[in-house]
């Protein structure tokens, strides 16, 4: 393949632009990250539950398709009834804005709020 040099340079610039864009977004979410207070569970676009991250527990979601575990201020999907198991592999989340998505079961767990906030509600 022989491309025009000018064309190749523009290609590289465009690729560089996308790489920088994603790097900037990574950096932005990294520096902004702070511990969250809630694990908010959304099933089929509806919020169905919010669990405090300060309280350890094992929760059955969406009539048993997914199992959410909260321990040590972190949340993760322990089990899922779907072929891809992507949400289980996603690992643990603890910072505001992070989320675990299970597309086949349409379950989303996202971290919101700040730690103290959850305390107020739990009492």
């Amino acid at each position, binding site marked *: *393949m*022989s*491309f*025009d040099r000018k*064309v*190749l340079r*523009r*290609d590289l610039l*465009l*690729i560089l632009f*996308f*790489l920088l*864009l*994603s*790097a900037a*977004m*990574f950096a932005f*979410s990294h520096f902004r990250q702070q511990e969250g207070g809630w694990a908010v569970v*959304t099933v*089929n*676009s*509806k919020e169905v539950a919010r669990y405090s991250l300060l309280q350890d527990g094992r929760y059955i979601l969406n009539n048993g398709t997914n199992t959410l575990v909260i321990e040590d201020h972190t949340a993760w999907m322990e089990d899922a009834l779907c072929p*891809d198991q*992507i949400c289980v*592999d*996603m*690992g643990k989340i603890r910072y505001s*804005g*992070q*989320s675990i*998505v299970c*597309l*086949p079961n*349409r379950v*989303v767990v*996202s971290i919101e709020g700040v730690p103290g906030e959850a305390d107020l509600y739990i009492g």
Partner: protein
Amino acid sequence: MKTRKLTGMALSIALAMIMSFLESQIPSFVPIPGVKMGLANIVVVFALYQFGWKEALGISMLRVVLVSILFGHLASFFYSFAGAVLSFVGMVLLKQTGRFSHIAVSVTGGVLHNVGQIAMACLLLGTNAIAYYLPFLILSGTVAGILIGLLAALLVKRIPVSFQETTEDSKDIKE
């Protein structure tokens, strides 16, 4: 010429479907939904250069519909559809400028495909929590796009048959 074009398009759709099927058999190596190679885009980029944008659009849309019916479900159709449309618009616009090669076209397609999917997921799941994965998906779309673009450029060079009646796009193919 007409029969030749028809056969070429039918072959392209079949190929794109095989690529999608092959890809669905590969287990995802990163635990992020939507990260994939986008093998079918090789065919779409190829068609964009060898057939023209209308034909490539037809191939891309038919592939999405047929693959969803055969191997997917309704939700997967919406994700692929949003990704395919956005990616196609971006690729055509970039190609029309005449200032970029197959690689940049394919990279734009890869990135926009992922952006489209995320937008659709936010819409369908009613939460913008998924936008958290956008930087991962822009990165993966770029890397996959480079690879797919190189493969498509190779194909365009090795199969230098133009299925177009006009030669207005032949200036893009550099020998």
